[in-house]
């Protein structure tokens, strides 16, 4: 973990003093962040022994985190706690920042502070290819899957407060009379359909994930039209023992610069094959 | 009028691994005879007794009990049937009593007739009570074995074996696990069974019992029967020096 014996009075100072920033990331998603299975730890890294280096993981989020580190002038190191430990806040100073495609919601803002968004993804509904369903309304009364504690689950439950998005980014509401099936992650939803389970015939997740699912041969199709759009940003712990505002300002500055100089668009094209770093309907 | 023997052991061998424990043993026991088997520890007394009802599988030889002949080298279903029949003809009493701890005294005694012979429960109880009475244990019929003294347990074990109405009773050191003062009550019951005409083969260290009750005393040594005589003869005038040594040992223990 970080901290300990430092003289810095804010998190930015502490990060600079120790020479690396500790980023938490969720390695369950390709192409956002996932293991580099043939990578190995470089010998000259400043990262703590129990953290991962940029050589051991990869993805869009990872590249963004690396760019942030570069802008701060420090090495970027990664830790991989369970996703709900990240979203719940109270990190106990174990890591400095989350760069993990986290959706900005009002509920999360009680526990976390967010940077400016670094990209935007539409949430879409994927249905089993053999179901013949082509529109949202046909899903009424069906069972639909989502990852536990994701914005997708809130949306399915019609919990707008939990979802906590500005009204303008929510395009449609969930179908009537559905049964929500929460699995550990949305990847389990996809794999359940692939395995031939019939407990549900659809799941909700980000368009990038569905595209990756389809590319991997999972027999699903996207329903036309996003159901809402998410702002994805870096997050900071409100209960951090050192103030985070200076770090947040520095990160905002770095992300804005990357938006402006096209770095983000380039990374997006590299990992997603399209540019999703421009805010929708604005 | 020579009667055919009720137990006949012919050329019996028993190996444990490479250990030759019974060596070509032959023995005939006429009906109603009481035989005491004595010998040093490890001489093979228990093994011989246990071969009679196939608790130990003999390696070769023949066992005949009340006309049922079993060859040690027989196999398969038929052999199992023969062994089962032999077991129905023999009752066994162990050193460690081996009462079933989860059953009351009465349940212990009717277990055999009801489960094995399919006897009507009522009839079994009648028979059981009769036998419990004759060993003086009827008053404890609803007690569990845990609550009985060693001597009482052994008397119930005898009643349990008797209730199967065996033709031969086998006893393997029935009093060795008992406190000295409880030995008497079990020996008395055994005496009673003997006088009622049961054929009995008794492995024992109780020289007094052998002298008083046995018709024959057989001495085993290293897997062989080395002497076979009536008790008076044997104790006063043993032929084999090993028998002499054995008797001396018992004497020194007693004194």
């Amino acid at each position, binding site marked *: 973990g970080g901290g300990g014996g430092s003289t810095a009075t804010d998190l930015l100072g502490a990060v600079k003093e120790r020479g690396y920033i500790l980023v938490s990331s969720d390695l369950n998603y390709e192409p956002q962040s996932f293991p580099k299975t043939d990578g190995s730890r470089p010998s000259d890294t400043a990262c703590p022994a129990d953290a991962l280096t940029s050589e051991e993981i990869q993805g869009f989020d990872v590249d963004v985190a690396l760019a942030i580190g570069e802008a701060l002038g420090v090495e970027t190191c990664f830790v991989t706690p369970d996703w709900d430990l990240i979203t719940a806040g109270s990190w106990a100073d174990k890591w400095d920042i989350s760069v993990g495609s986290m959706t900005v919601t009002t509920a999360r803002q009680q*526990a976390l502070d967010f940077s400016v968004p670094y990209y935007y993804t539409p949430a879409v509904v994927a249905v089993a290819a053999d179901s013949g369903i082509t529109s949202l309304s046909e899903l009424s009364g069906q069972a639909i899957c989502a990852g*536990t504690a994701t914005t997708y689950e809130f949306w399915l439950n019609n919990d707008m407060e939990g979802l906590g998005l500005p009204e303008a980014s929510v395009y449609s509401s969930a179908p009537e009379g559905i049964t929500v099936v929460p699995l550990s992650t949305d990847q389990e939803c996809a794999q359940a359909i692939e395995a031939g*389970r019939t407990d549900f015939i659809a799941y909700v997740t980000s368009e990038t994930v569905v595209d990756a699912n389809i590319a991997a041969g999972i027999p699903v199709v996207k329903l036309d039209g996003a159901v809402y759009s998410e702002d994805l940003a870096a997050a900071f712990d409100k209960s951090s023992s050192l103030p985070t505002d200076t770090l947040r300002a520095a990160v905002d500055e770095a992300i804005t610069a990357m938006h402006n100089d096209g770095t983000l668009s380039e990374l997006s094209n590299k990992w997603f094959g399209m540019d999703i770093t421009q805010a929708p309907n604005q | 009028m020579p009667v055919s023997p009720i137990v006949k052991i012919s050329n019996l061998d028993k190996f444990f691994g490479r250990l030759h424990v019974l060596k070509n043993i032959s023995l005939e026991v006429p009906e109603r005879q009481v035989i005491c088997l004595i010998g040093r520890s490890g001489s093979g007394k228990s093994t011989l007794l246990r071969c009679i009802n196939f608790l130990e599988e003999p390696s070769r030889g023949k066992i005949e009990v009340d006309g049922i002949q079993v060859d040690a080298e027989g196999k398969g279903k038929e052999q199992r049937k023969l062994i*089962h029949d032999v*077991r129905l003809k023999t009752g*066994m009493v162990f050193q*460690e009593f081996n009462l079933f701890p989860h059953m009351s005294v009465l349940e212990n005694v009717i277990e055999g007739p009801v489960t094995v012979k399919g006897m009507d429960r009522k009839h079994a109880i009648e028979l059981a009570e009769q036998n419990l009475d004759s060993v003086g244990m009827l008053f404890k019929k609803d007690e569990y074995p845990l609550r009985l003294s060693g001597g009482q347990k052994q008397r119930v074990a005898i009643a349990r*074996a008797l209730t199967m109405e065996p033709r031969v009773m086998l006893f393997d050191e029935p009093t060795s696990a008992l406190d000295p003062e409880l030995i008497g009550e079990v020996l008395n019951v055994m005496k009673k069974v003997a006088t009622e005409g049961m054929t009995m083969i008794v492995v024992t260290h109780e020289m007094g019992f052998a002298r008083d009750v046995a018709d024959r005393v057989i001495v085993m040594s290293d897997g062989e029967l080395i002497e076979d005589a009536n008790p008076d003869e044997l104790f006063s005038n043993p032929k084999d020096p090993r028998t002499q040594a054995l008797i001396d040992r018992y004497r020194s223990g007693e004194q």
Partner: protein
Amino acid sequence: MASITNEGQMPASQAELLYQAQLRKERVFRMHVGISWGVLFLILIFLFSGQHIEFGGFTFKTINVDSEFIFKNITFIAGGLGQTLLISVLSILFAIVMALFAALGRLSKFPPIYALSTFYVSLIRGTPLYLQIFFFFLALPQLGIVLSGIVSGVLALGLNYGAYMSETFRAGLSSVGKGQREAAMALGMTPGQTMMRIVLPQALRFAIPPMGNDFISMTKDSALVSATGFVHELMWRATKVGRAQFNSLEALIMAAMFYWVMTLILTYFQSKLEARLSKGDR
């Protein structure tokens, strides 16, 4: 044997005094243990009371839990007790059946049966329970066997505990002395009768205390079944409200309290049962 005092030289009242003194000593010990438990429990509560204590220049903080959250959500979490118990009971029953077969198979002289029983135990004990649940939920459908979430959970838990429990049963079977089998065989019982009427009843009695322990840990492992999405037991509910309201610690503590109370109750009955069995006809 030795009879009651009044025939000895010591008057009955003095014997009674000595006896009472002994009883008192035991009572005092039990009382002091009770008091110590109380103190330890208070310390535990204090640790979670969110105090700030200063003396001298030294400040000491204890852990802060949000008691309002606890009161608001306790009934929701408690609603999972029924499912937890249901799954645990069903699974343990199935486990007992499996354990019995495995333990008996282990005694078989027929090589395929022996092999099947040892293979089962080795495979199950050698692999994680999580994988087994996953297998029943996501892999079995590929064989055309589609089981509901709760059924696959109970099957997986039962198979898993059955493998471990079979060792308990094996110990139970071998705790029944050779003499018992021999006595039964000498009476002419078949091996089957010997097993059913003589050996098993005694072995089960021996196996009951460890089975009690298994049941107690089953209540906790049953939480894994909620990964299949259709089971909403204690832990699932705790995680869910905890995540949604960023109070994971509070939610987990509540779940833990329920588990603990359940364990205490079960332990109490277990010790009653054990006392009865050992006092009984053994």
